[in-house]
């Protein structure tokens, strides 16, 4: 059975094959809650096409590590043979420099933040990533699928934007791909940072990546812009087009939606940025399902019920989590002053459990 290809493009951080599985599960679980899909699984209508580009950054770091490891081995040997008195200090300094250039121990800065820096400020790295993602994305344009959509997250939103624009602008031994020939039905930009990372020659509000009719050359049918109210990553230079984008009179309101969820079902503060955390909210997954299948599949009343239930569950989850955390801190005996004092110190920190 021909299905709709759903391309997943990840955000910053080292990812492995199958990285999309948790997000896919959130969508699959959510779909089964809607009446029209009682007898239909997500896998009956959608085939995931996960794109992996963080392996390129990992390979770069591995190359640097290997080069530096050979260097360090030789340096240690030479220092040892020459009996240099402060050789331990020298090798320690060497290790510190190696870490600072990404060739030493892995740290959050190098496995996550530097992906963003390398992509935005190192043109060669960016060009390579765009080509790699373009090649993987092109697999979804095959005529074995009935259509395709993209769910991009965080750094992946900038990658998806730049890659799509290049896909419709580059002639590779022939004319460039035209949106009438193939384009994503839904472009879901989750934790959209494409504007803060935009490039001088591909501005996000001027590029081909706009929703609307295919004959106008728009690179997607529906553009869903998700920015969580408390997701700090989406704050600098937010993607907030005014009423002139996309040009009025060329699209239906459903084709561009700016959605700002505010739910918090998190264990750690940074979870607010997670793809799965976004997708769990009906305000996020329902527009995606509607875009792929059709708005009538989840009518307005059912959508509103799903939102209410989600909000109630969210409140219950948070209350339960707080109760459990407090319960764990209450001493068994009211004379256990040590535990009681520890609890009081914990609470005064006002850290969410």
């Amino acid at each position, binding site marked *: 059975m021909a299905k709709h290809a759903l391309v997943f493009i990840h955000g910053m951080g080292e990812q492995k094959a199958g990285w999309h599985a948790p997000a896919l599960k959130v969508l699959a679980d959510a779909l089964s809650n809607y009446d029209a899909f009682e007898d239909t699984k997500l896998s009956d209508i959608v085939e995931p096409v996960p794109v992996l580009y963080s392996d390129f950054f990992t390979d770069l770091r591995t190359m640097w590590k290997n080069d530096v490891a050979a260097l360090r081995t030789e340096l240690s040997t030479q220092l040892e043979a020459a009996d240099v008195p402060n050789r331990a200090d020298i090798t320690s300094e060497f290790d510190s420099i190696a870490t600072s250039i990404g060739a030493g121990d892995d740290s959050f800065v190098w496995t996550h933040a530097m992906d963003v820096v390398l992509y935005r400020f*190192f043109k060669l790295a960016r060009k390579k990533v765009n080509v790699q993602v373009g090649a993987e994305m092109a697999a979804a344009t095959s005529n074995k699928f009935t259509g395709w959509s993209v769910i991009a997250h965080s750094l992946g939103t900038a990658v998806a934007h730049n890659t799509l624009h290049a896909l419709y602008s580059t002639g590779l031994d022939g004319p460039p791909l035209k949106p009438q020939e193939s384009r994503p039905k839904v472009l879901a930009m989750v934790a959209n940072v494409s504007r803060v990372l935009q490039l*001088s020659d591909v501005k996000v509000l001027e590029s081909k990546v706009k929703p609307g009719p295919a*004959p106008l050359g728009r690179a997607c049918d529906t553009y869903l812009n998700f920015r969580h109210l408390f997701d700090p990553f989406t704050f600098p230079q937010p993607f907030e087009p005014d009423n002139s984008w996309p040009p009025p009179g060329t699209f239906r309101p459903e084709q561009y939606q700016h959605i700002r969820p505010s739910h918090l079902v998190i264990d750690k503060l940074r979870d607010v940025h997670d793809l799965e955390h976004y997708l769990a909210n009906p305000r996020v997954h329902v527009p995606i399902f509607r875009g792929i299948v059709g708005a009538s599949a989840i*009518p307005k009343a059912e959508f509103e019920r799903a939102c209410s239930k989600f909000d109630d569950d969210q409140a219950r989850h948070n209350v339960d989590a707080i109760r459990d955390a407090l319960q764990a801190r209450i001493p068994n005996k009211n004379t256990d002053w040590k535990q009681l004092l520890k609890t009081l110190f914990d609470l005064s920190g006002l850290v969410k459990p």
Partner: protein
Amino acid sequence: MNTRTVFRFSAAILLLCVSGHAAAQDICAVPPNAKNVPGQLAKVRARDCFGGSEDSASLTRKIIATLSSCDAKTAAEQAALRKKLGTDSRLVEGASAALSSGATVDWKPILGALQGELTKSSAQLDDVHATPAPENWKWDDHATLQQTDGTFAVSYLDLLESKCDGSGSDGCAKALATAEEVNRFVNLSRALHQCAAHEHIAAIEKRLNELNARWDDYFFNTRSQYIWELLINSWRYKGSDAEFGEPPGDQLIVAHPGVTLEYVGGGAQNDKAYAPILMAEIIGYNRFKWPDRTDSSGDKLPSRLPPLGISLVGTYSPDNDGKHVGYGVMFHVNNVYSFGVGRRDTGAGDETVYLLSVDLMKRLLKPSENTMKEFRNK
């Protein structure tokens, strides 16, 4: 196995077949008394029930059979394919005309608009120079063929909703049947256009994969770049971000530390003749793409020149007699083989020393396995 067991086994198989058949039919069935007929219709469409693999309609089976191969490499094959697709499209046109003639008055304008689009579609498919447009035939819920003003040429949601209130009336059943036919025609047209677009799209995918392989070569099969070299070479790269591009054909080498072998005398085949030392390529240039050459008939051929490079180097060997620091020049061939000459005070005054990469030593001087093992173990 006795007769009763055989009978029970056969009955079970039969039941499985029947239930399987029923299930296959069920996934595409939309009951007119469903609570949300448009929603159910959208869902079964997503399950490929109209004009797709789950559709048993004879028109669909006939057209799908001709779509088994969309490959068309040559101009003649492309012309033949487009002719075949045009013919198929006219079958859809014919079926649509038949539906229109028997349709109720409220469907007439919708089916009339569809008929007009199908006629245009057939002409478009016939014309090998016209760009196929499968995306124009995608559904936005129950509307399709979006025009440049954002409106849709074909849209029937209001009509379906007005007929289907959950009671399962005849009016709903008829509207539903017509809507299913419209879905079939639209999806078949999309499939025909997808087939016409296949060659171009497949070529783009192939080119992108080739281009990606060239970028992999640039990063991992040329001389390695540290992060500052990547920054400098990025700054030198002039390709626009608006398009995919070829990787650079050269690279600057800047402050690139490494390990090299210094020939310290004693005979080239002597394991002890080479000492590993630290070095830094202070500045260098490596080129791996050369202009094509032209043969006698004027055709372009790839250059015969291999990747070549040169670097100014400084060496450091605290374990040696004499001065620890030296300098010299290294040449790079094929990105992996490097050799050079340097000057260093070896304790017996300034002397010329010979430098070479491990790969080159392995290839040219064939040192013993023991030497290589020792070097790797260090």
